[in-house]
């Protein structure tokens, strides 16, 4: 999901030229293999909800209508281009008005559009009806991943983040692309089949959009606001979509994956998640040792921080500061914890206090303070993070 560059024009050219040849070679081989099993996908994805079927039907009707208009108009035009050409000796008529015909081709299209508007209205009213859901989940857009939280039923309280699972090697062409290239996540949203699922969307930073074409669902995720949509999946399976509102550099790398399972499997999954969450409940009073904490912190860093600050901590200055050798990171602990907890307004630095618990936040801060050329030797106890929350 990340490649290294400042984004500044003057610096990307040499790097790109160097990798182009390699990329072309590997890409070319992959492409010829792809063409052999080419998909040529050209239509709406198979609908698995009633809404998606309605959308597909409406689209089919519209295709018939516009094809009719197209062939109607252009067969007349084509005939005219043939029969009324000067080279065939056709003499130009000089008529230039006909009020009756004008009225006809104003009124008839108007009537056609009224006819089109009726089923369109019905479909939309249906799509906006989020009443009486069986389950409500919240999808929060982050730069650049989704966070899910179950709000009702047995699953209430289950929350996790859903991060792109495709590796950098695949993206850069250094490894063959998997079957669900760019459409795979580590932890999908799991919902039961044949149940009305209400999805609330919001964002922690910029506008994203949560979309699953097979459900005909697409709703913006607007920071500071909660939008809602719904779906009732009629078939078990795994359904994939992508973020659908430009949200920054990795907009193309934060897919939406929904796994629709039987009631039984959903109940099992819910119980399993709750057990895992209980096991992971942190003890904010635990006292960590440096080596153990740094190891844990590295995992957190790789999951949450590399997209911007890079594996080697060099960042993407000036928009994204380097952490390696940073005055803030090697300076007073409170300032460092504060900025990770609360973010920095007006920049892409999010408030990770909302995403990470005290243990994980303390660990990642400790990792940064003891990685690369930073060797502060500092340990950060979760209790220190907890004490700073809300300040």
């Amino acid at each position, binding site marked *: 999901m990340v490649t290294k560059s400042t984004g500044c024009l003057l610096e990307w050219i040499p790097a*790109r030229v160097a990798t182009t040849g390699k990329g072309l070679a590997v890409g070319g081989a992959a492409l010829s293999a792809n063409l052999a099993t080419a998909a040529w996908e050209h239509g709406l994805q198979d609908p698995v909800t009633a809404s998606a079927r309605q959308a597909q039907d409406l689209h089919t009707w519209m295709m018939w209508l516009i094809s009719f208009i197209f062939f109607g108009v252009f067969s007349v035009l084509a005939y005219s281009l043939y029969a009324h050409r*000067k080279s065939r000796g056709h003499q130009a*008529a000089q008529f230039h008005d006909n009020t009756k015909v004008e009225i006809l081709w104003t009124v008839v299209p108007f009537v056609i559009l009224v006819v089109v508007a009726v089923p369109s209205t019905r479909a939309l009213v249906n799509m906006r009806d989020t009443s009486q859901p069986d389950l409500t989940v919240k999808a929060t857009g982050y730069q650049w991943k989704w966070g899910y939280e179950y709000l009702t039923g047995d699953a209430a309280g289950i929350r996790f983040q859903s991060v792109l699972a495709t590796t950098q090697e695949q993206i850069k062409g250094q490894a063959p692309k998997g079957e669900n290239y760019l459409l795979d996540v580590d932890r999908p949203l799991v919902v039961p089949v044949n149940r009305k699922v209400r999805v609330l969307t919001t964002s922690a930073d910029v506008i994203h959009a949560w979309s699953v*074409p097979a459900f005909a669902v697409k709703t*913006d995720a607007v920071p500071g*606001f909660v939008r809602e949509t719904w779906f009732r999946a009629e078939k078990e399976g795994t359904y994939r979509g992508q973020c659908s509102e430009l949200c920054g*550099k990795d907009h*193309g790398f934060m897919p939406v994956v929904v796994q629709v399972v039987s009631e039984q499997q959903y109940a099992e999954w819910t119980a399993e998640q709750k057990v895992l969450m209980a096991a992971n409940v942190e003890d904010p009073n635990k006292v960590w040792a440096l080596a153990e904490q740094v190891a844990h912190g590295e995992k957190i860093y790789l999951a949450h921080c590399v997209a911007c600050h890079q594996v080697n901590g060099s960042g993407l200055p000036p*928009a994204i500061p380097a952490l390696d050798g940073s005055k803030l990171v090697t300076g007073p602990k409170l300032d460092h914890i504060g900025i990770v907890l609360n973010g920095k307004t007006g*920049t892409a630095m999010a408030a990770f206090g909302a995403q990470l618990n005290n243990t994980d936040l303390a660990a990642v801060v400790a990792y940064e303070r003891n990685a690369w050329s930073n060797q502060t030797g500092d340990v950060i106890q979760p209790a220190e993070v907890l004490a700073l929350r809300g300040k």
Partner: protein
Amino acid sequence: MYASDTAIHPGHEGHEAHAGHPPKGILRWVTTTNHKDIGTMYLWFSFAMFLVGGAMSLVLRAELMQPGIQFVTPEFYNQMLTLHALIMVFGAIMPAFVGFANWMLPMMVGASDMAFGRMNNWSFWLLPPAAILLTSSLLMPGGAAGTGWTLYPPLSVQMGIGMDMAIFAIHILGMSSIMGAINIITTILNMRTPGMTLMKMPMFCWTWLVTAFLLIASMPILAGAVTMLLTDRHFGTSFFSAAGGGDPVLFQHIFWFFGHPEVYIIALPAFGVVSHVIPAFSRKPLFGYTSMVYAIAAIGLISFLVWAHHMYVTGIPLTGQLYFMYATLLIAVPTGVKVFNWVTTMWRGSITFETPMLFALGFLFLFTIGGLTGLVLAITAVDIQLQDTYYVVAHFHYVMVAGALFSAYAGLYYWLPKWTGYMYSERLGQWHFWLSLVFFNVAFFPQHFLGLAGMPRRIPDYAQQFTEFNLVSSIGAFGFGISQLMVLVVVFNTLRRKEKAPAKPWEGAEGLEWTVPSPAPYHTFEEPPPFDNSRAHG
């Protein structure tokens, strides 16, 4: 009968280099208040910007040729797609039609020049600094804005100084457009030759009259939106930030209140050109002049009432979605009337297929396709599936490129003899047309399929099922891009072969511009020409 341009007027003796001769050298172009000179500058500027914006699109299509990231980083890709659109809309297509307006409107209405010559000069000369500001934002730390041309906050609030440069460039471009619009309205309303009532005015004048009002009403709105963005970025306001009591979606409402009339600002002059070319090469008057005028006015008016069809999935209330769907469907009616009228103009005419007519036919065919996909997008329940996918990208390239650009080419070939005094090579023109037509469709038709299949827009890399059509589209894009270099070949070949053009090279052409010699003298219609009432429309 046309007025001699060497007539002597009292009070003119003090002016620089008159009696038909402009000053020499670069100073001529810097200080000119002559509508022909200014029109020429607009046209060269727009073509240069077209090549720059086109090169950027080829960066995008090169990256999209295969899945994976090969050439550019995702953040640079976003900068390219943002600048590509801003340059094409504000630097290429809008100035191109303003160039046509400058060259042709005074001659079409029988006026000696535009109403405000010095302001006209300023309108043009604001453009190069704005273009430099916009393109050089790429060199700034953090690069250019990477938000898409729509500049939505909060993402645009995160951007670096490149965003501020884009905002200032937009302000300057807007000022240029507003001043140009004032000039056009005043010229058309006040300087028509006696006998030329509004309902006898050429269609290109009508389209520009309505377009100018759209510009005056909508450009200040854009200025407001980007200024609010600027203050949110730097001066502590929260217009678009929920944390401060604002709303990111407010920006979208303000932007699209400008943005939708903007696309008709681009389309209406294109309609005007086509309304001249089709009758000329059918040797038949434009069918339904009155309803064509009403259609233009209706389109102009309704264009202000449909903006939120760009916002169907933002969470606006159901009532809003329904209203905007109905209003958007409604705008198809006058647009359809225009298409039917153009076809009927040709019906039982005596048609020939010189290059201007080919491009006008290309416009008719392809703009209609774009309009029909617009109808599909208007249906909210379907738009849910297509919003922010390549279906939208295909739609607007059909109407803007195959529509507006092809119309501009039609106008270029149609009026080039008048401007230069020489005929272009018909063979080269045909090559330009056919290459453009074929490669355009190869580039953009597959994008409908990509959108239907679910490929989002504004992504530098894509899932495997989108591979094949992306490859086809990229090949088409490169072919189309290279074909546009033919414009330079045609223009320079025209000036080289020096095949003299008569005052009216096109048998069926109508209008006052064809009553002056080719090339048109530096000053035309210094006395208002007599206007023959019976031959009403241009």
